[in-house]
C-alpha cells in the first residue's frame, strides 16, 4: 500500500469515527486527525471543574443508529447505558408538574381529551418519524439527472410516504413543512403540555414554535425513537463514552487515530486532493480526504474558496449555521431539591417551557440578537445515574439553554454572565436554594461552542435542519452525496444528510460513498 491509497479523516467527531471504522473494516488504511486532545468532537465528556465531569455539548443520546451500534459492536467496545428511556418532567411554577413518557401523561393535571390526543399524536408522529428514519442510511437521491439508482432513491422516498396510507400521507404532507405551534393548537388544550411538546421541536434550532420547519425538526428528533432507540438515554461516562466506543471500534478495525493533530489545510494536486497539512507543518499524503468538519470550515477554510466554483461557494456560504442554544454546566455541592417534585423524578429530563407563548417570546429576543430574557431549559442531572461524574455526594447539572443567538451582540463575557444569571434564576424558581449549591459553573454560548468544538456558528447540527437544507439539499444542492466537487474530497459530518444529533449515519453513508467511488473509478 502506498501513501496514495491512504484515507485521511479530518476530525474525530462521532461521524468521523464511524466513517473511519467502516472504511478500516473495508480494508482501507485510515488515519484520523483530530485537533482536540481527545476524540469525540461535540460528543465528549470533559471536566469543567475539579472533580466534575459532564457531556460538553450534546448531553442526551436519542438518535444513535441501532444498526451502527450493532455492526460496530459498540457494546463490546465499552458502551454501556447509565439510563435509558428518560421521562420528561415539565416543571410548573405552581408545582403541578407534568410527567410524560412517550405518549402517556404519568402525572399532572391534564384534561382527559388531551391525554387521548397525546397518545394519538405520539403514535402518529412516530409513524411520520419512521419515514424520516428510513432515509437515514440511504444516500439522498440526486434531483434532475442521474441514472437508475438516483431514480430508485427518489422512488423509495415517495414509496415510504405513500406507504403511510391515504390519511396519514395527507397529514404528513400537510404538516411536514409547517410549525409546531399550529399543529399543537389543533390538538391540545393544556398550555403546559403544549409547551413541553413544543420544546422538543425547537431545541438546538433557529426556530420558535411558530416558525415553519419546526415540525420537521421534531420528526428528525423523533426519528431515533422511530429507528428503535429507547427514547432519551445517558451513556455511562457521559456522551464521550459513545465516541470512545466508536474510536475503539475504529482502532480495532485498524484505523489510526491521532489526537492533538489539527489540520491546517487540505492540499491539492491539480483538481484532486493530495492530502492534508497539519498546523505544525507536517504533511500527510492521501488519495482521499474525508472531512468531519462542518461544510463551511472544510470547504471555505481548510480547502479554500478559490479551489471551488463561484456558485458552489455562494451556496456553501449561505448554508445557515448560526447556533441558537447555549450549554450550561453546574457543579453542585448537593442534590438540588425541586419544589413538589418527588426525589425519584429529579434524575429525569426536566424542562422549563411553561407554555408555547413563553417559548415564542424567548425566541423573539434572539431573533434580534439578544439572549432570551426568560430562557427555556432542558435540564439533566447525569450524576444521579453515573457516580463517576462528580465527587461522592455532589452532583453535576447539564442544561441546554434557549435561546442564545450566534451574534456579536450576544457574545462575550457580559452576555454570558447575564444569561447564566437568568438561567440560574429560572432554575432557582423551581429549586429554591439551587443557586447557593453551585460551586462552579460554565455557560457556553454558540460563539464558545464554535471555538471549543470548531463548529461554524456553534450549531449542534452543523447547520439548520430545514426543508431547504434537508436530504438531497443538505448541505447544498450538488454536494448532498458526500462527494465534493474537488476529486477525492468527501464530507461525513452533521452538515450532510441525515444531519445532526449523535447518530453516526452521516459517517457510515460517507464511508459507503467513498467505497462506491473507488469501485466506479
Amino acid at each position, binding site marked *: 500500500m502506498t501513501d496514495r491509497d491512504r484515507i485521511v479523516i479530518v476530525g474525530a467527531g462521532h461521524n468521523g469515527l464511524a466513517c473511519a471504522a467502516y472504511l478500516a473494516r473495508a480494508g482501507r488504511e485510515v488515519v484520523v486527525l483530530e485537533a482536540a486532545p481527545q476524540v469525540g468532537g461535540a460528543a465528549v465528556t470533559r471536566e469543567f471543574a475539579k472533580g466534575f465531569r459532564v457531556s460538553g455539548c450534546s448531553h442526551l443520546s436519542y438518535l444513535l443508529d441501532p444498526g451502527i451500534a450493532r455492526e460496530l459492536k459498540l457494546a463490546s467496545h465499552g458502551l454501556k447505558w447509565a439510563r435509558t428511556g428518560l421521562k420528561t418532567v415539565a416543571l410548573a411554577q405552581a408545582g403541578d408538574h407534568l410527567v410524560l413518557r412517550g405518549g402517556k401523561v404519568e402525572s399532572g393535571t391534564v384534561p382527559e381529551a388531551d391525554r387521548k390526543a397525546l397518545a394519538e399524536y405520539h403514535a402518529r408522529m412516530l409513524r411520520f418519524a419512521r419515514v424520516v428514519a428510513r432515509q437515514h442510511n440511504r444516500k439522498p437521491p440526486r434531483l434532475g439527472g442521474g441514472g437508475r439508482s438516483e431514480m430508485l432513491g427518489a422512488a423509495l422516498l415517495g414509496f415510504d410516504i405513500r406507504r403511510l396510507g391515504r390519511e396519514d400521507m395527507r397529514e404528513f404532507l400537510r404538516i411536514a413543512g409547517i410549525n409546531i405551534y399550529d399543529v399543537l393548537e389543533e390538538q391540545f388544550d393544556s398550555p403546559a403540555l403544549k409547551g413541553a411538546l413544543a420544546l422538543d421541536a425547537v431545541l438546538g434550532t433557529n426556530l420558535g414554535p411558530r416558525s415553519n420547519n419546526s415540525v420537521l425538526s421534531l420528526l428528525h428528533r423523533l426519528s431515533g425513537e422511530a429507528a428503535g432507540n429507547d427514547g432519551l438515554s445517558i451513556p455511562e461516562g457521559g456522551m464521550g463514552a459513545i465516541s470512545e466506543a466508536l474510536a475503539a471500534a475504529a482502532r480495532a478495525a485498524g484505523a489510526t487515530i491521532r489526537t492533538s493533530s489539527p489540520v491546517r489545510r487540505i492540499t*491539492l494536486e*491539480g*483538481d484532486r486532493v493530495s492530502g492534508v497539512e497539519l498546523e505544525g507543518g507536517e504533511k500527510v499524503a492521501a488519495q482521499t480526504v474525508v472531512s468531519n468538519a462542518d461544510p463551511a470550515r472544510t470547504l*471555505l477554510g481548510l480547502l*479554500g*474558496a*478559490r*479551489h*471551488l*466554483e*463561484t*456558485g*458552489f*461557494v*455562494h451556496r456553501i*456560504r449561505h448554508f445557515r449555521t448560526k447556533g441558537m442554544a447555549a450549554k450550561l454546566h453546574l457543579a453542585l455541592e448537593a442534590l438540588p431539591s425541586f419544589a413538589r417534585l418527588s426525589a425519584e423524578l429529579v434524575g429525569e429530563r426536566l424542562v422549563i417551557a411553561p407554555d408555547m407563548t413563553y417559548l415564542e417570546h424567548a425566541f423573539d429576543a434572539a431573533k434580534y440578537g439578544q439572549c432570551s430574557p426568560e430562557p427555556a431549559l432542558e435540564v439533566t442531572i447525569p450524576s444521579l445515574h453515573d457516580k463517576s461524574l462528580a465527587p461522592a455526594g455532589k452532583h453535576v447539572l447539564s442544561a441546554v439553554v434557549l435561546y442564545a443567538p450566534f451574534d456579536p451582540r450576544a457574545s462575550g463575557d457580559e452576555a454570558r454572565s447575564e444569561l447564566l444569571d437568568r438561567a440560574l434564576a429560572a432554575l432557582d424558581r423551581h429549586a429554591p436554594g439551587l443557586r447557593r449549591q453551585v460551586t462552579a459553573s460554565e455557560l457556553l454560548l454558540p460563539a464558545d461552542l464554535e471555538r471549543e468544538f470548531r463548529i461554524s456558528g456553534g450549531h449542534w447540527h452543523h447547520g439548520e435542519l430545514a426543508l431547504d437544507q434537508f436530504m438531497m439539499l443538505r448541505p447544498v444542492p*450538488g454536494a448532498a452525496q458526500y462527494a465534493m*466537487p474537488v476529486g477525492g474530497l468527501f464530507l461525513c459530518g452533521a452538515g450532510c444528510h441525515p444531519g445532526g444529533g449523535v447518530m453516526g449515519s452521516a459517517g457510515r453513508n460517507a464511508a459507503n460513498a467513498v467505497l462506491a467511488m473507488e469501485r466506479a473509478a
Partner: protein
Amino acid sequence: MNVKEEMGRKEHYRRSVWPTAFHARTSELNILNEWHRWKDYTTADAYFDEQLEYAAIRNACAVFDLCPMTKHLITGPDALAFLNRLVTRDVAKIKPGKVGYTIWCDDNGQVIDDGTIFHLRGGVYRLCSQERQLDWLTRSAFGFDVTIVEDTHDVAALALQGPTSCAVLKAIGCAGAENLKPFDIGYFPFDGAELMVSRTGFTGDLGYELWIDPAHALALWDALFDKGKVHGIRPMGTHALEVARIEAGFIQAQVDFHPADQAIMLDRSRSPFELDLGRLVDFSKPCFNGRRALLEEKKRGSRYRFVRLDVEGNKPARSAYVYDKDKNVVGTVTSAEWSPSAKKNIAFASLQMPWGRPGDELWAEIYYQRELKWYKVMARCHVAEQPFWDPPRKRTTPAADF
C-alpha cells in the same frame, strides 16, 4: 448637478437613461435623431445614414461612442488568481500592456458573458463586459484579496475603426501609435491627460479603442474630428457596427447567446464549445468556473454547434429557422445581415448536433415584406469555415496610413 454628482448621491433613479461623456457632440451630429437605450445610456442607432457609416468603417474610419460598455477595475494581490478562477482562458498569458478576449461561465459551464481583459499595468486589470457583471464578480471575489470597482461612468471610451484610423491617431499626437500590435495597449499624453489606446475593436478591421478621463472627452472628440476630416472620419451608430461585427464573426450576448445567469430554461444557455469558442477554454488551469462541467461535456459531447452561414440569395435570414434536407428544424439563425464587403448574405446560427458540419445541406426559411405583403423563401445555406471579413491590415504592424 452633473451626472457624476447625481450618481454619487444615489439619485440615479431620478433619471433612468444617462447621457454619455460625448453626448454634447453625438447629439449635434445625430441628424436622424435615432437613439436607443444601451445599459441605461443614450446611444445613437445611426447618425446620418447607416450604409455610409458602415462604408466609413471599411473605407476610411468611423467613431463609435463606447462609454456605455460596462467596465470594471480589478486590483489587489489576488487580481490574477481571481480572474483565472473567473474566466476560462489563462489570464497569466495576458502580459502587462496586452488585451485578451475571453468568456466566463457559471458552475455548469454555461456562458454568462464575453468581454475583454485589459492588463493595464502590472497586476492592474480592466474587465469590459457586455452585461452588468458586478454582482457575479463580487460573488466570485469571496476568498480572494481583490478590489473590484465598476467604473463604467468614470472612463470615457471611443472606438476608432477603419483603415485610416491609425493616421488619425498620429494626427492627434499619438506618435508611434502605428507600432501597436493587435491587442496592445499604449499610453499617450493628450490635452494634459493620459490617453490610453488599445488596438482592439468590434469590426474585424484595423482599429483602436481610446480611453480617457471624461473631463477630456470632448477635447478628444473634437481633436479626432478636426484632424480626421481629411481622413474621412465619420460617426457611426450601432446599426453600422452590427453589420461590421457579423462580417468579422463576433458574437454578442443577448443576441447570439442568452447569458446563463439570465436563462430560466435549461436549454437556453450555451457552453463555450457550443459557441465555437473552445479555443478560449484552457483545461490546464486546475480550477475555473465551469471547468468540471466542460470536461464532462468534452466526454459526453455538446448539444449545439455555432456556425457561420453563407446564405444563398440576398434576403437577410434574420431569426430564420434552419432545416435539414428532410425539412426537420435543426436550429435557428441568431444574427444575419447582407455583407456589403463580402457581397454575401451572411448569418450566424445555433444548430443542434450534429448539424453544421461543412457540407451539410441546410436551408433557411426567410420571410420578408414588400409593400406590406409577406413573402417566404427557402434559401440554401453553406457552412463557412472562415470569417467573412479578415483583411491583412487588421494584423499588419506597423499599421499603414491608407
